[in-house]
């Protein structure tokens, strides 16, 4: 029982170019396409759908990967009824007029349904499958079809502009198509079609004919390698245009062919290269794909004046404050004003006995500041004009004392970059107010309380050997307090600021502090909670002091101390009961200490907070998805 009516004729209208329509269609077939990728942790599934509008079907519909989970969660399946919210027609092959529908956004209106109507494949023999009408989608593999197998008679039909065969040509330049006919039909042509320039950010593996106009923003040296197939060589380069960036690689013959041809900073037309999902292990550029130059690839230099519109470099800045949330050893792009800079320091590496030049600067933006270390040539070359705006591309995040940034050989440093309006924004802000502000410094190790740390279970502390490294580990645990040591919950503390030592009660109204060597007639109550927390995997003892203990118990140390003095056992028991009945998030610092030849694990509570169930749920869903993708 469907109750949904399909938008008949919508498929033809989409293919004719009317992509603004939000049609209701039925999924009549789903095919999984696995992309080969070097990185096994990246699931590169792509789903191809056959859609029906009740009257006709079209089998070349690619589902945007952000919607893959609809299929994987069984919400989108055969016979599901969907509403297309955003779609684009993609020309795969201009010669034959083959097109593909890219489904960027859709909504599942009804998961389960019966087949509506008796749709037949659109009469587009040369678009779908070389004359195989009504082919069952599971029997064909369109990805292997090439344009050269198309019969020329089919091409003729399109050129005549037949109304029943929608192609990109119909909508655009029939004149262009006819005029350039000879050039286009030539296989492995050596000319680059400069009419068909596309943006880097539209490149995907399903496009056959494209040309890009890009600037080489970086190029690596040729590297030799050995693998199972024998020796080889490669180089990488990064390409940018006004829409984005992409990494390209060339191997062996192509490596030799193109390495000397491409110069950093120059603009080139590039056509016909392969695209595959980006290998995130090595490529952190902002593009889902990366390019490989192959035998057919054409590269032609562009005249200087024609290439002026292409930017020198593509930045993906994150605010300095966001660096706190990124893990160490990742790279990022960042921009800020240099508030201060040290002189060049020469240090000698302990391990290699080599001399290194380094320079540290304090980089600030509107919300935070961070220490940046420049190394070697970059330290020497840095021109220190007064508080310049500096952008870093591909700079490494370190976690010394919080967060720091450190340049790599491959890091690009650009002073007062013109490619981004952030330069002007920062300049104006700094000159007006920034130079006077005291911003939170990510490199001062402070405020572990606000930094994101991973969630673990109590048993993982043992299984992962947390706390056994040189530096303490910080984790979040969702747990319940199961025991609290009552007698030692508070102690009488020296009232002297920053002393913290326990005082001796002289029992005559005075209290002696051995550390300060003074006697006082008052003291301060201070928390020193020893509590056991438990989750479904185990239990651990933790310590909590000051603010965290106060949050945990819900009353101040002073009040608690008074209850203790007045021997209000019931009230104290009540306080403990309330504490032990609540599940909370504990941020713990874990470090093992050597104490008289014995290793002891010390778990200190840095922060206690209530559980935000929405975040927690999303975290679990994320973890489940990660487990799923590994299994695939």
């Amino acid at each position: 029982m469907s109750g949904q009516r399909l938008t008949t004729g919508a498929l033809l209208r989409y293919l004719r170019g009317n992509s603004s329509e939000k049609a209701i269609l039925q999924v009549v077939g789903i095919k999984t396409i696995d992309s080969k990728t070097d990185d096994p942790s990246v699931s590169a599934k792509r789903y191809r759908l056959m859609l029906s509008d009740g009257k006709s079907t079209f089998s070349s519909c690619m589902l945007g990967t952000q919607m893959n989970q609809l299929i994987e969660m069984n919400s989108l399946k055969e016979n599901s009824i969907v509403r297309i919210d955003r779609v684009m027609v993609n020309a795969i092959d201009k010669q034959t007029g083959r097109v593909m529908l890219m489904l960027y956004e859709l909504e599942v209106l009804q998961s389960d349904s019966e087949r509506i109507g008796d749709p037949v494949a659109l009469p587009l023999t040369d678009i779908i499958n070389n004359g195989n009408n009504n082919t069952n989608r599971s029997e064909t593999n369109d990805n292997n079809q090439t344009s050269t197998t198309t019969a020329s008679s089919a091409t003729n039909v399109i050129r005549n502009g037949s109304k029943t065969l929608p192609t990109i040509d119909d909508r655009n330049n029939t004149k262009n198509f006819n005029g350039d006919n000879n050039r286009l039909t030539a296989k492995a042509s050596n000319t680059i079609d400069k009419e068909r320039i596309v943006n880097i950010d539209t490149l995907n593996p399903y496009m056959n004919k494209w040309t890009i106009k890009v600037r080489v923003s970086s190029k690596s040296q040729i590297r030799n390698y050995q693998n199972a197939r024998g020796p080889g060589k490669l180089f990488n380069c990064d390409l940018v245009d006004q829409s984005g960036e992409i990494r390209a690689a060339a191997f062996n013959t192509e490596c030799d062919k193109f390495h000397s041809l491409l110069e950093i900073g120059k603009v080139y037309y590039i056509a016909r290269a392969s695209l595959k999902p980006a290998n995130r292990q090595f490529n952190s550029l902002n593009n889902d794909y990366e390019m490989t130059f192959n035998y057919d690839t054409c590269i032609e230099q562009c005249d200087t004046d024609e290439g002026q519109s292409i930017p020198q470099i593509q930045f993906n800045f994150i605010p300095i404050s966001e660096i706190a949330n990124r893990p160490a050893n990742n790279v990022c792009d960042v921009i800020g004003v240099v508030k201060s800079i040290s002189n060049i320091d020469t240090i000698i590496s302990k391990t290699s006995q080599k001399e290194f030049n380094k320079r540290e600067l304090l980089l600030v933006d509107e919300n935070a500041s961070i220490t940046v270390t420049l190394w070697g040539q970059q330290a020497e070359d840095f021109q220190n004009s007064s508080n310049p705006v500096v952008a870093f591309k591909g700079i490494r995040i370190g976690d010394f004392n919080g967060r720091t940034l450190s340049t790599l050989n491959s890091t690009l440093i650009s002073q007062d970059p013109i490619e981004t309006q952030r330069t002007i924004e920062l300049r104006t802000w700094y000159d007006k107010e920034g130079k006077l502000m005291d911003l939170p410094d990510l490199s001062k190790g402070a405020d572990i309380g606000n930094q994101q740390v991973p969630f673990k279970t109590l048993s993982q502390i043992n299984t992962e050997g947390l706390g056994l490294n040189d530096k303490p580990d910080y984790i979040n645990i969702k747990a319940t307090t199961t025991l609290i040591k009552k007698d030692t919950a508070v102690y009488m503390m020296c009232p002297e600021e920053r002393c913290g030592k326990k005082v001796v009660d002289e029992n005559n109204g005075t209290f002696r502090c051995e550390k300060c060597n003074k006697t006082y007639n008052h003291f301060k109550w201070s928390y020193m909670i020893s509590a056991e927390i438990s989750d479904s995997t185990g239990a651990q003892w933790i310590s909590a002091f000051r603010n965290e203990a106060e949050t945990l118990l819900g009353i101040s140390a002073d009040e608690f101390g008074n209850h203790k003095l007045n021997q209000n056992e019931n009230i104290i028991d009540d306080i403990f009961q309330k504490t032990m009945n609540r599940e909370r998030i504990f941020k713990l610092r874990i470090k093992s200490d050597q104490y008289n030849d014995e290793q002891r694990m010390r778990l200190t509570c840095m922060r206690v907070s209530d559980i935000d169930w929405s975040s927690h749920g999303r975290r679990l869903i994320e973890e489940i998805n990660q487990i799923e993708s590994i299994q695939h």
Partner: protein
Amino acid sequence: MSHHYRINGSMLQQFNEKPVSIIGTVTKIHPSGNIIDLETSDKQHIVVRLSEHVDVNAGSIIEVLGNVDNRNQIVCDTIVTFEPEQTANFDMDMYNQAVMLFQHYPQDYLVNL
């Protein structure tokens, strides 16, 4: 407590004649008071038939326990209502993802207690 399967709007058909639990927002209460329209966690609209008049407010989030009949409606035997403070931060989208997960991994999410 009997074993109600947690589902959303798109799953109604699958659970025909089975006892289910659906959480959603009340969009319309029919004048008779015995039929309410519910927008489920996956933004579907379903019809819930009550055996007697129940006091619910339009726009409030409720949980409906009942059976799916063959008209793709819920015949409800119990309604769980919540205080506005309790549902103020309810993440309906996340609940929907959880419901889909339950279906995806039936061996891991127990229904019979």
